[in-house]
């Protein structure tokens, strides 16, 4: 039934043996079977055509274990922070005491150990793992993370950060999962941070599951960064957006090694809205892949995808976006746009937007562009005395910032724009 051939398969199989006793046995078993049926994604799998994960994960590193020492982790903004470090949720590094009213937090490890069916239903990802082997692997091997629930009707005044870092000097694999549930009409801003405090080439598989009940509204601000050019990171965002609920996501991806960010967004009720925005910065030999599927399953939904890629040196960017409109999802309104700027002759961008429409009364469109900086714009700026490098930086910054125009939180916007400026300042002249 399960064929395990390669060294990698054997290693993952031993990880499963290690993890399957850690709660949620049935859920893990089903996920493992889903993974084993598919195996590590290779380039023949359409959704992974541009990202050769099988090659990158040829030698899986041992499963991460908690780092003993306390660490101070610098703060980038004023959020209530929940830290998962090297695969383990760390109450000692988290601001549990500062959590606002109406918010409940439990570690995933504890939730899995208790196995309450209601909670397991929130944690599960059966629908997506049938499609994607890396989500299945995450479900089979998940070590820890956070289950965060925001009660119905609550509007959070404070933003909450889910920070997931790798820090070990040893090369390790980590599998973490966070679940964020917004009750009916709840409103919140969540920051998702995926970082690296080490230059060791970690292998990181993270999932974030969002469940927005009817009328809920969530701003999700994601910041991804790393240190090693051998870091391999797969981040999966699974969003379930119920009737009248709205998700706005803003992601800044600073390339590091191989990164795959995948989004599976399902508009699960009428009049729901999803806006996915992102900017990706890649240079060196970095590979940054954003792949998303927006699934309109009900009528009158709206989705907007706006992605900006800035690729320098020998970097590679990938954008694959698919809007699916199911037969009943009439009056769907979807617009997807992906633009890329290549800053060097060796930079590569693979841009693939797609529509799969099975309803007849819809308004959907997509556009993808890829090019160099606009010469006329550059000349205009230089003709005003702005030196070439600075003029280019202004244009690149402006281009990237387009992804964050809708973000209302000034602090977070400032933080993201500051990161973009720093990235540009490090660009070679």
């Amino acid at each position, binding site marked *: 039934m399960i064929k395990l051939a390669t060294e990698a398969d054997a290693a993952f199989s031993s990880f499963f043996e290690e993890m399957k006793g850690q709660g949620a046995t049935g859920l893990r078993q089903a996920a493992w079977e889903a993974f084993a049926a598919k195996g590590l994604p290779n380039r023949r799998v359409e959704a992974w055509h541009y990202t050769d994960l099988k090659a990158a994960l040829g030698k899986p590193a041992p499963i991460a274990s908690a780092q003993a020492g306390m660490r101070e982790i610098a703060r980038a903004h004023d959020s209530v922070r929940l830290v998962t470090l090297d695969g383990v949720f760390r109450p000692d590094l988290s601001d549990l005491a500062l959590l606002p009213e109406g918010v409940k937090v439990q570690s995933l490890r504890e939730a899995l150990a208790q196995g309450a069916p209601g909670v397991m239903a929130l944690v599960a990802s059966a629908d997506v793992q049938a499609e994607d082997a890396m989500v299945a692997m995450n479900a089979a091997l998940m070590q820890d993370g956070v289950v965060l629930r925001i009660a119905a009707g609550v509007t959070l005044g404070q933003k909450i950060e889910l920070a997931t870092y790798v820090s070990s000097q040893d090369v390790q694999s980590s599998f973490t999962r966070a679940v964020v549930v917004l009750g009916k009409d709840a409103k919140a801003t969540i920051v998702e941070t995926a970082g690296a405090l080490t230059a060791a080439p970690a292998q990181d598989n993270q999932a974030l599951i969002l469940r927005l009940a009817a009328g809920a509204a969530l701003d999700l601000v994601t910041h991804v960064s790393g240190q090693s050019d051998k870091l391999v990171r797969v981040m999966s965002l699974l969003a379930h957006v119920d009737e009248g609920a709205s998700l706005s996501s803003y992601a800044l991806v600073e390339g590091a090694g191989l990164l795959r960010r995948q989004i599976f967004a399902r508009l699960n009720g009428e009049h729901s809205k999803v806006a996915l925005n992102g900017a990706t910065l890649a240079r060196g030999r970095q590979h940054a892949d954003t792949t998303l599927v927006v699934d309109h399953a009900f009528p009158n939904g709206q989705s907007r995808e706006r992605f900006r890629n800035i690729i320098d040196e020998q970097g590679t960017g990938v954008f694959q976006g698919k809007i699916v409109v199911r037969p009943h999802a009439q009056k769907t309104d979807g617009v997807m746009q992906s633009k890329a700027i290549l800053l060097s002759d060796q930079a590569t961008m693979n841009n693939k937007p797609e529509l799969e429409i099975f309803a007849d009364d819809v308004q959907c469109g997509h556009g993808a562009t890829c090019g160099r900086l606009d*010469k006329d*714009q550059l000349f205009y700026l230089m003709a*005003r*005395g702005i*030196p*070439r490098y600075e003029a280019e930086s*202004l244009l690149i910054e402006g281009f990237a910032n387009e992804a964050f125009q809708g973000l209302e939180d000034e602090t977070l916007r400032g933080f993201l724009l500051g990161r973009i400026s720093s990235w540009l300042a490090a660009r070679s002249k």
Partner: protein
Amino acid sequence: MLEIKNLHVSVGDREILKGLTLTVKDGEVAAIMGPNGTGKSTLSYVISGREGYEVTQGEVLLDGENILELEPHVRAAKGVFLAFQYPVEIPGVATMTFLKAAMNAQRRSRGEEELATPELMKRVKEAAAKLGVSQEMLRRPLNSGFSGGEKKRMDILQMTLLQPRFGILDETDSGLDIDALRVVSEGVNSLRAPNRSFLVITHYQRLLDYIKPDTVHVMAKGAIQRSGGPELALELEERGYQEYLGEEAA
């Protein structure tokens, strides 16, 4: 002083400027008039340093220095300013950010201290008020969604702030309404000074009623065909360009 000597410029295989010679003295306002497609904008781009033009012969001297090998921002630092026929929209760049970058780049190149934001804002607001550029326009991304006339005003606002030594106005009057034409012309007139000169490209006498030129030059077939005083513009208004086009017109 700007001296253009026997300038030949090609785009691809096509020669557009064919031995153009023109001198604009300090303090002078020189007007260029000429038929569509004759190379007026090409001349303004070549002076300001846009890519894509091949200078096959001749030179452009600013105060005796040939500027043709210099990058556009270096020419700007030396005082060349082009008010574009078609100013470019730059949707990602905030107008104030741009103005700050431009003004401070210029100050750096002169070895002056950068301006602090409040002082800069004050100068921008004052100049904007004079030119009828609204606060709302200043808050928008550069030229983004501006009407044709609004873009022209924004260019003149930049010229006012940057105080160039040699300003080129490429059909600044096109797209301006009657009131705007007056306001913008007053803006230009207030910049007239003994050490500052202008090249005003236009199709219409109307602009020259406001910005009174010292010299008028007829450009056709890629070169200056005739030069004279303000009366030449009136004559052109009457008679058109036929006599300068020679066989090409036939």
